[in-house]
Structure formats: structure tokens, C-alpha cells
């Protein structure tokens, strides 16, 4: 399988990438690690006419301690998120979630920014960063703006980023020693989650987000408020699907997904409380 023909340009910086996408218009697409886009192009489910390769914008590959948060460059590869000492110390939930993306070869190429920008509800990092209350920094022709993760995902593979904007940084609040759990349920090694849950807990606060339980990653606010109201883990987990809108597919019916969301939320909260 070979993608349809396209023109290829390489950007050396975020500024250049943003001006190239403005110049080439709506059939142009950014290429980061290519591990979501190229499979779609090989199947001809995507046929961009121009690819703007941002894979060499090396100054957007970093993990930095930002004081109250950890700042991660959009071009940071999954393998570097997984093994970052700063993330392992201050946002271990995210480092752990990254270690569950695909397989090592995929993690050597795929980037956190590509995963978030692609906004696949079955992906692990959109939900993990949503649970953690992350902020995404995007750069457009008129400068940069910040979008809360909770305001970012608008629909299946659709975000509130404009077509001429590029995701440049992910800011994750430090977890401050919060307990956490990450549950990914699949049938075979390397598979995507049938359902996944990312959760953390610290004193009365909690954050829970669901993978593959709707057309966007789902923030399970009802679980967090139940816990804040003093509910037990078992009772709070019963609320797991309150915000979800799961679809049936080859792997799971709607009922089964809802069941999994509750069970996995309970397990994730138990891990977070342990």
C-alpha cells in the first residue's frame, strides 16, 4: 500500500511550519511521527496534497520542569515521555500511559503532540492529559494561545485548534504525590484500548478520564464529584459512564463498554488510593 502522491516540505521551526500551512491551504497537513497519519494515507482514508514535515523541529522535543507544571514539547516522542525522569517524578501517570502506546517501534516515532492533535478517542495520551487537567499551547499566524484539555476535544478526530494552528507544548500540572492508576483493557498485546481509564487522587481531589468511551476522550466528572462528596470507590465507580457516549464496534457492545468503564475505574481508583 502506497499513499496517493503529495508534495513534501520540511519545516525547521514552529514559525516556519505555521507559515507553510497558511501558504498551502486546507489540503496541507502536518507530519510529525506519521504513526497515525501514514497508516491513514496508505489506506487512502487521508489524501493530503501537501505534507509539512515538522518531525525535525527539534527544539520542540523536550520535557522541562516548569515550576508548578511539567512542559512537554509537542514533538517529544512517546519513548522520551515514557522514560523522562522529570515526568516519572512529577507526572508518573503520563509517563506510564506513554509506555502503553503501541509497541517500542511505534513509541520510537510517534509524538505526544501528534497523538493529542489527532484526537483519536481510542488513544491513551489525550485521556491521560485530560485527567491531569493539562493545558495545550498552540501557535498560529497571530501568535500563541492556551487551550484547556477540557475545551480541546470537539468531536471524533476534531479539536478546537484551527487548521492553521500547530500544537507546540503540553503543560501538565505536577501531581504533587497524588496516587494514580492507569487501566488499559485490550485483548492482545500492542492493541489499542477497548476501554481505558486514567485516574489520580489526592486528599479530596480526583481526576478521571476515559479512553474509547465516546467520540472524544471523556472526563468522568461525576466520579470525581462523588468521591469529593465522600462516596466509596465502589459507589463512585458506578458513575464512570455518566458523561460517556460509547459506540459499539467489533470488540465490544455499548453495554460491555459501560461495564468495563466501571470496573476499570474502580481498579484505577483502588491503585490511586493504595
Amino acid at each position, binding site marked *: 500500500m*502506497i499513499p496517493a*502522491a503529495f508534495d513534501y516540505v520540511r519545516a525547521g521551526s514552529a514559525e516556519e511550519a505555521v507559515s507553510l500551512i497558511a501558504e498551502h491551504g486546507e489540503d496541507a497537513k502536518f*507530519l510529525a511521527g506519521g504513526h497515525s497519519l501514514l497508516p491513514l494515507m496508505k489506506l487512502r482514508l487521508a489524501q493530503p496534497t501537501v505534507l509539512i514535515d515538522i518531525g525535525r523541529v527539534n527544539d520542540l522535543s523536550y520535557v522541562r520542569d516548569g515550576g508548578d507544571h511539567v512542559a512537554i514539547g509537542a514533538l517529544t516522542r512517546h519513548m522520551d515521555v515514557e522514560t523522562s525522569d522529570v515526568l516519572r517524578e512529577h507526572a508518573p501517570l503520563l509517563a506510564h500511559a506513554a509506555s502503553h502506546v503501541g509497541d*517500542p517501534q511505534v513509541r520510537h*516515532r510517534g509524538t505526544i503532540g501528534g497523538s493529542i492533535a489527532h484526537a483519536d478517542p481510542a488513544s491513551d495520551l489525550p485521556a491521560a492529559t485530560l485527567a491531569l487537567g493539562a493545558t495545550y499551547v498552540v501557535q498560529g499566524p497571530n501568535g500563541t494561545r492556551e487551550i484547556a484539555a477540557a475545551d480541546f476535544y470537539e468531536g471524533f478526530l476534531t479539536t478546537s485548534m484551527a487548521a492553521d494552528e500547530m500544537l507546540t507544548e503540553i503543560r501538565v500540572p505536577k501531581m504533587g504525590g497524588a496516587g494514580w492508576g492507569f487501566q488499559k483493557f485490550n485483548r492482545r498485546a500492542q492493541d489499542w484500548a477497548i476501554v481505558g481509564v486514567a485516574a489520580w487522587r489526592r486528599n479530596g481531589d480526583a481526576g478521571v478520564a476515559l479512553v474509547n468511551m465516546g467520540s472524544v476522550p471523556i472526563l468522568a466528572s461525576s466520579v470525581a464529584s462523588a468521591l469529593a462528596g465522600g462516596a466509596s470507590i465502589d459507589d463512585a465507580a458506578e458513575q464512570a459512564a455518566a458523561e460517556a457516549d460509547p459506540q459499539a464496534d467489533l470488540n465490544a457492545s455499548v453495554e460491555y463498554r459501560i461495564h468495563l468503564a466501571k470496573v476499570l475505574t474502580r481498579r484505577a481508583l483502588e491503585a490511586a488510593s493504595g
Partner: protein
Amino acid sequence: MEISVTVNGATHTSDVEPRTLLVHYVREHLGLTGTNVGCDTSSCGACSLHLDGEAVKSCTVLAVQADGTEITTIEGMAAADGTLHPMQQAFMENHGLQCGYCTPGMVMAATSLLQENPSPTEEDIRLGLEGNLCRCTGYHNIVQAVMACAAAPTA
């Protein structure tokens, strides 16, 4: 578009279409057919090679993305005099292959794994090779081979 890549130590400059996949570049432009295509959908790992020292699935990388990089394929693993790479030797001694179709990708993934984790547990090896499918061996002897290679003083 013109690209320049160093493959198994030799530098090649080639004119490729942007849509040329790295695996096709290596197999068809360079004639290095040791790198196999199994699934063509990023799943099986048969096409694994090293890009700047790390295993990647070359059916999911464009040749233009590899411009300026160093690539090692299975053909670059043995020494010039034909002495097998310790991982190849370990696969042979432990019967880590049957039909051999997955083997180039397995060897490339396994050597990349040992670079990142020189003393893996059996569990680490099974997880580290989760992107490589084998339809013959049942994996047992592949895992044994990687463990043997990790334990060998020469590895």
C-alpha cells in the same frame, strides 16, 4: 526529492517520490531485500530496521523522513567476514526461527531492546517484542534467544 542516507555504513544519494515508503526504498532502490513486508499496516514488525540506532517499522516511515539518517538493516548486522551478530547467533543456537519470515524484524527489534535495556527480564523481552508477530515459533525460543544474547558476555 533527493535524499541522502547511510545504510549499513554506505552513503546513498537517491531521487525518490515523497510517497515512497522507507521499506520500499531499502528493498527496491537499494536491493536490500532482507527487510520484509508482512502486514503493510504497521502491525507485524517484519519491516523493522534501525533508524539512527532505534528499531522502527519501515512500512510506516517515508524515505524522505529518513533523509540524513543512519540506517542499519539485517544485512548490516553480521561482520564483514560473515561472523554473525551475537543476536543472530543466539537465534540460530536457540532455534528462534522456523520459516524465518519474521526473523530480520525480530533481530532488529531485539537488538534495539537490548540497547535500551541490557539486562531485561523475560517479561521485558515479551513486552519489548510486542510489535513483532511470529506465526511459527510460538515465541518461546525467540524469547530464549534474546535472553541468551543478553546473558552472553559478547553481547
